[in-house]
């Protein structure tokens, strides 16, 4: 990159926010994961914690393709389902050990994402949304009707939890224990976060946001928009597939209804409420939209109304989601506090 005209160098930082702050945040998150099952000791809340971790993975995956690459993908429920069914069938029908089946199923849903995107990269905005929604519907119908393979609406029962891990010098870790299972799923959610965070903070981050902002402009900078969209879809569906594998071994039962297209919209709501185009936002959104309906359980079906109203209010008034709300609040609160003192 030899460049013309000698010019003065100015102190410019590409990234804002020192690294040590982020390291502390990561340590705090790891600490929170370690402590949570100790606070939530009953099976009900531990189950909710695991669902939070699963949803966080799904939302993170969707955010990579939606919030960064700007592609409205409503097929996330399908990749979730493909991961769940592929791993379960590999284990129950082919007798493959869990972790190998896990790797296979993750690769399979990633591959499905790449295949979908090869067709979808020609489409934009609403058209892409409709095409990916169609993919989710087709996948659901296949899971429902290919009875010889998936047992259709009857479902697959008695799926074993991940096999115990025996590390030398430590007691055997059993995953029929909800706390351990939470550590496993949350650990993978954390890993997904780290992986996506690394990718976003590499030049790939600028490449994907450039595509999101203006494809013609991105192409004028040498960016192959199609290839990078395929990449984003692949990463996104891989993460969703991993979540699916854990879902199957956590719930122990697989029915196609768990992967109906409405699941895609639930994941979309988590990303939007949390804050698109940030990584922490979708995690927050996933936790909030998983826990909120549980907290509202005692008001019966009215909780769905509250849920719907809450999502609508966020979209209308804080389109940047929780992340933007926090940013606005932290910018305003000190000023209000000062005014209060004066």
């Amino acid at each position, binding site marked *: *990159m*030899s*460049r*013309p*005209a000698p*010019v*003065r*160098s*100015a*102190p*410019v*930082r*590409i990234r*804002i926010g020192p690294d040590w702050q982020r390291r502390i945040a990561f340590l705090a998150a790891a600490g929170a994961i370690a402590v949570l099952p100790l606070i939530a000791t009953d099976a009900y809340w531990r189950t909710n914690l695991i669902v939070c971790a699963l949803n966080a993975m799904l939302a993170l995956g969707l955010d990579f393709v939606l919030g960064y690459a700007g592609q409205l993908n409503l097929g996330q429920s399908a990749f979730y389902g493909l991961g769940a069914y592929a791993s379960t069938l590999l284990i129950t029908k082919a007798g493959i050990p869990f972790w190998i089946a896990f790797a296979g199923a993750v690769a399979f849903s990633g591959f499905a994402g790449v295949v979908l995107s090869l067709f979808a990269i020609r489409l934009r905005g609403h058209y892409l949304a409709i095409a990916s929604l169609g993919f989710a519907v087709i996948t659901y119908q296949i899971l429902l009707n290919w009875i010889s393979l998936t047992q259709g609406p009857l479902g697959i029962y008695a799926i074993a939890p991940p096999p115990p891990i025996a590390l030398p010098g430590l007691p055997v870790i059993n995953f029929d224990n909800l706390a351990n299972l939470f550590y496993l799923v949350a650990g993978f959610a954390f890993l997904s976060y780290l*992986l996506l965070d*690394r*990718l976003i*903070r*590499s*030049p*790939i981050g*600028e*490449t994907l*946001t*450039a595509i999101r*902002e*203006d494809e*013609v*402009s*991105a*192409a*004028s*900078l*040498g*960016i*192959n*928009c199609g290839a990078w969209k395929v990449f984003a879809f692949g990463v996104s569906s891989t993460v969703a597939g991993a979540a699916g594998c854990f879902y199957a071994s956590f719930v122990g039962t697989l029915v196609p209804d768990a992967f109906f297209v409405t699941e895609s919209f639930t994941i979309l709501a988590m990303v939007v409420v949390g804050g698109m185009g940030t990584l922490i936002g979708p995690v927050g959104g996933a936790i909030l939209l998983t826990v909120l309906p549980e907290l509202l359980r005692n008001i019966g079906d009215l909780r769905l109304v509250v849920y719907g109203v809450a999502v609508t209010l966020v979209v209308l008034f804080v389109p940047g989601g929780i992340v933007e709300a926090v940013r606005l609040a932290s910018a305003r609160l000190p000023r209000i506090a000062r005014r209060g003192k004066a």
Partner: protein
Amino acid sequence: MMTTARSADARPVAPGADALLRVQGLHKSFGGVHAVRDISLAIPERAIFAVIGPNGAGKSTLLNLLSGIYRPDAGAIVLQGIDVTGLPAHRRVRRGIARTFQKIRLFRRLSAVENVVAGFHVHHDIPPWQYVIHARAFRRDHERCRDEAARLLAFVGLAHRAHVPAGSLSYGEQRMLEIARALATAPRLLMVDEPAAGLNAAEVETLLDRLQALRRSGITLCIVEHNMDLVMKIADWVFVIDYGQFLFEGAPADVQTHAGVIDAYLGGKPQ
């Protein structure tokens, strides 16, 4: 239409230079409208080559054909002896063609420096695994991009605006930022589409000065303009089109006295 068809050999070539980019018989029509008709031209190396013409003459279409946003219906585009006619826009960037847009197309929500960094896309030198584990090569690349971006922003006078979202910059600043972003791709040929549109007199002066600095550094420039004064000041060679067709080409002084050009600009009858 055939009145303007000429062979490349018979055409006058700008003095003392080899062609960086050669275009032969380029055609493009949209529906029934012939936006570009049988255009042949040669852009000499290290020159400032201006394409002028009245509004709607097909200048921007020509630029879109050269940069690969449109595919020509007929004709060939050859960069340094290599036929790039079939290459999509992003592949042409790797061969050294960069451009700016008449209607500014910055990444409005990204900061100025992030816009420039996006322009380094084809020049990153990082082994794939280091995208996940940021080790030495990644950090070296990161530092190099940071320094280069700072240098480019300073070059266009935006060092102090590095962290401002591109959409919040003034119009003139946005035009300069687009040039900096295009320069980040390290082009041999930089094509600027109406760079002076919407700029005030002082900004135009700065722009001219920067463009001349780029030419001195070895970059070939192709400027699409309809502002004649600006073209006369800076261009080595002027190529005039009207109604999508070749009208005239020559040194700036010759263009000003050519009857057909004057007609086209003052609203005379097309040839």
